[in-house]
């Protein structure tokens, strides 16, 4: 009988920790590593081909550790398999150019999308898969468990407990998967606390899940990605927001929801306390949110519309406001926000009745995509929000009504009673420079062909979309009973795009009679009422005022 070893991972971790201790010598005190020794640390703990999670979030970046990775000697450390949710920094791709890393599993590449596409087509990166956030986090616990996690936190104490600050984001998911499966967790922090004169405001990650802590020379990078200056909201966006509130939110009584990050959804947030109030909707819609702390939500919160907000990440400048509104936001014992991308994604998927957001292209099946040629942008979290939750079992009026509409008159399995999530795509028929939002064929298909992907990168499948909202009207796809109807419903709100002009006018009028398509006038909305005067805040400063001075926008957003 061969003796089997069942603790190879633990032994491997122990060996790496010993290697690190030897390499660092006096540069290691407890778990603290000298800033200048970070390269030595990484070379000691990393082995070629390791699976590594470098914390790249939507907002917070482990930028110092990313820079350290780039400077490693590819002779010693190479072929790493990076598993990270967001590629945001140039360093995230530099490590593929210099050979330190070779394989990549990701969710979103945002600003690095064009360079990523180039490196992939040049054979410098082998992509495993492009995921949604929840998928990638899930795979951390199945077959993409990191051997080494490089994370960012605000502060650490002498034991190695971590305080993440309001941007906890992905950190708990990454650390849990790594620490409990024989991996090594290294954190960069902005400050030390000694435990005597100062203690951590709260503990987000306990010390025994963390192996090394290094103080970064500069605070980690955080981007204010969710700040939308109300000054840039157009009359057309306000018109669409009015249609959303009256034609969808009120119609279904949507209490629990998630918003995208565009100006159109910011317009909705800013119309709740004005237009929404005038329709008597307070308390009837928009009470619970899975949402980052959008500054544009401040007026609605102040007017008493919002009961709870759980967040994926935080937003710069909102710290004091959140602290002062702890009934609404999830806050720690210290009073500051605790965000958590994994939980918030789950909340958005299972506990929200509606997702509403924008996209770049919609086809005649209602499939939508933000993919553009020569960029690999990835998915992020939108597909988790913008998909019917097939595992959901609890009922709510909005969910049931959508389900009834979708199933009325159907038999068999398709007619089995259940609810459905409202997934709303909100687009102007033309984007800037007269780019049509409605197309016969998504660019995603061409991208698939060029990049040799298994599937076209579709953000939200037409099957999941319940409504398409444009300045021309609302198309309720739940009520369509055939592909032909669905196509005409989409053409019927596609305005003067080629797709819209090619509509069957008679069929579209018929759909309108049935309430499948509703124009502004069908909803009792005069487009000329859609003025910026309806916005509860028309400028960044209005938002500051609405917050009683608690919101402190980043300087790039200040015009005073």
């Amino acid at each position, binding site marked *: 009988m061969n003796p089997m070893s069942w603790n190879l991972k633990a032994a491997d971790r122990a060996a790496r920790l010993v290697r690190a201790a030897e390499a660092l010598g006096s540069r290691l005190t407890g778990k603290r590593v000298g800033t200048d020794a970070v390269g030595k640390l990484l070379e000691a703990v990393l082995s070629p081909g390791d699976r590594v999670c470098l914390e790249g979030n939507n907002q917070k970046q482990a930028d110092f550790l990313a820079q350290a990775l780039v400077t490693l000697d590819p002779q010693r450390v190479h072929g790493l398999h990076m598993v990270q949710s967001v590629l945001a920094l140039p360093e995230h791709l530099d490590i593929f150019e210099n050979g330190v890393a070779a394989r990549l599993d990701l969710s979103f590449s945002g600003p690095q999308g064009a360079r990523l596409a180039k490196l992939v087509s040049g054979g410098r990166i082998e992509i495993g898969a492009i995921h949604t956030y929840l998928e990638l986090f899930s795979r951390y616990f199945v077959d993409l468990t990191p051997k080494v996690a490089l994370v960012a936190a605000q502060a650490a104490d002498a034991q190695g407990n971590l305080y993440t600050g309001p941007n906890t984001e992905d950190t708990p998911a990454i650390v849990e998967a790594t620490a409990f499966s024989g991996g090594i967790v290294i954190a960069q922090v902005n400050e030390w606390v000694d435990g005597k004169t100062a203690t951590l405001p709260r503990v987000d990650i306990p010390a025994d899940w963390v192996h090394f802590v290094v103080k970064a020379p500069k605070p980690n990078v955080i981007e204010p990605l969710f700040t939308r200056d109300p*000054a840039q909201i157009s009359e057309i966006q306000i018109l669409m927001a009015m249609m959303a509130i009256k034609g969808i939110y009120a119609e279904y009584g949507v209490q629990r929801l998630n918003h995208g990050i565009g100006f159109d959804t910011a317009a909705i947030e800013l119309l709740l306390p004005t237009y929404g109030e005038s329709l008597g909707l307070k308390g009837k819609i928009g009470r619970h949110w899975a949402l980052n702390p959008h500054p544009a939500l401040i007026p609605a919160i102040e007017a008493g519309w919002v009961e709870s907000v759980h967040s994926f990440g935080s937003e710069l400048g909102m710290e004091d406001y959140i602290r002062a509104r702890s009934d609404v936001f999830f806050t720690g014992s210290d009073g500051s926000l605790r965000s958590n991308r994994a939980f918030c994604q789950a909340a958005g998927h299972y506990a929200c009745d509606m997702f509403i957001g924008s996209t770049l292209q919609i086809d005649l099946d209602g499939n939508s995509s933000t993919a553009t040629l020569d960029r690999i942008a990835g998915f992020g979290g939108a597909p988790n929000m913008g998909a019917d939750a097939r595992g959901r079992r609890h009922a709510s009026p909005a969910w049931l009504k959508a389900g009834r509409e979708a199933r009325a008159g159907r038999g068999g399995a398709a007619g089995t009673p259940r609810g459905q999530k409202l997934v709303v795509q909100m687009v102007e028929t033309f984007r800037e420079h007269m780019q049509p939002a409605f197309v016969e064929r998504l660019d995603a298909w061409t991208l698939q062909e060029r990049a040799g992907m298994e599937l076209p990168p579709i953000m939200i499948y037409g099957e999941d979309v319940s409504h398409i909202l444009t300045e021309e009207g609302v198309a309720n796809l739940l009520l369509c009973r055939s592909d032909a109807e669905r196509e005409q419903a989409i053409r019927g709100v596609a305005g003067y795009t080629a797709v819209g002009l090619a509509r069957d006018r008679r069929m579209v009028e018929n759909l309108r009679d049935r309430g499948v398509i509703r124009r502004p006038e069908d909803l009792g909305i005069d487009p000329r009422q859609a003025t910026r005067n309806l916005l509860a805040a028309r400028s960044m400063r209005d938002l500051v005022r609405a917050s009683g001075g608690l919101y402190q926008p980043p300087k790039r957003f200040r015009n005073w």
Partner: protein
Amino acid sequence: MISYAECSARERLAQLLDADSFKEWVPPVERVTSPHLTQLSVPCAFDDGVVIGRATLADRTVFVAAQEGAFMGGGVGEVHGAKLVGLLRRAQRDRPAAVLLLAESGGVRLHEANAGLIAVSEVMRAVLDVRSAGIPVIVLIGGSNGCFGGMGIVARCADHIVMSDVGRLAMSGPEVIEASHGVEEFDSRDRALVWRTTGGKHRWLTGDCDALVEDDVAAFREAAIAALDKAQPLTLDALEKEHDLLAQRLHIPPAEDAGGDDATFLWRALGVADAQAVPDLAVDAIRALRNQ
């Protein structure tokens, strides 16, 4: 409260002047547009970006001009400039109670640069002519494009300047300075820095404007009415005082930019104890700072 910054030039006039009192000269139906823009295949505006005419303000006859910042950044071209000059010359002839200039301009319209440059200098001379005739010229600045370039000089040739805190008054735009001397010299994306350097609060604390108001059309109206009888003759004595003020100010900040925040340095020297707090203070609190 109606935001002055958000209004178009025509909306500002409609809100600011006595109701239905405005009579436009060279109105859009006359289609006096820029032939140069047409040559360059750029769309014209029927009023070439400036609305001029006669109206009453608190029952007093005033001549007014309002520049449209959304059209070519309010840039002054041949026709635009000539409309302003005509208005000012007519003021000299007809002697209204005041001339109101609702300025929103990047300065010379670069598409017709040579004509624009000469036109701005003609406007400047005409403003000084009106002023020396004892008719106050009142400049209102609160549009999102600010008042820059040659129009920034023209504004300072007037008797009285009213600004909101979102208004900006300066010479070169931050983008131009950044392009010329680098982002270390002037980071044009740092809006807080841009406003500390050129914004209404700064201009109020330094005395570069005469009234600071909220971004509210009614507040601008009130301030314009208050300025109606405040002609400030340009005498030798007045110019000597102006010279002393500017010469003293020149030596307040460190000669070489040490990378620090020059604006707060300047405000402190002007007697503002908590200069750091200025950007976050409300307009009435800022107004009180200068009265000390």
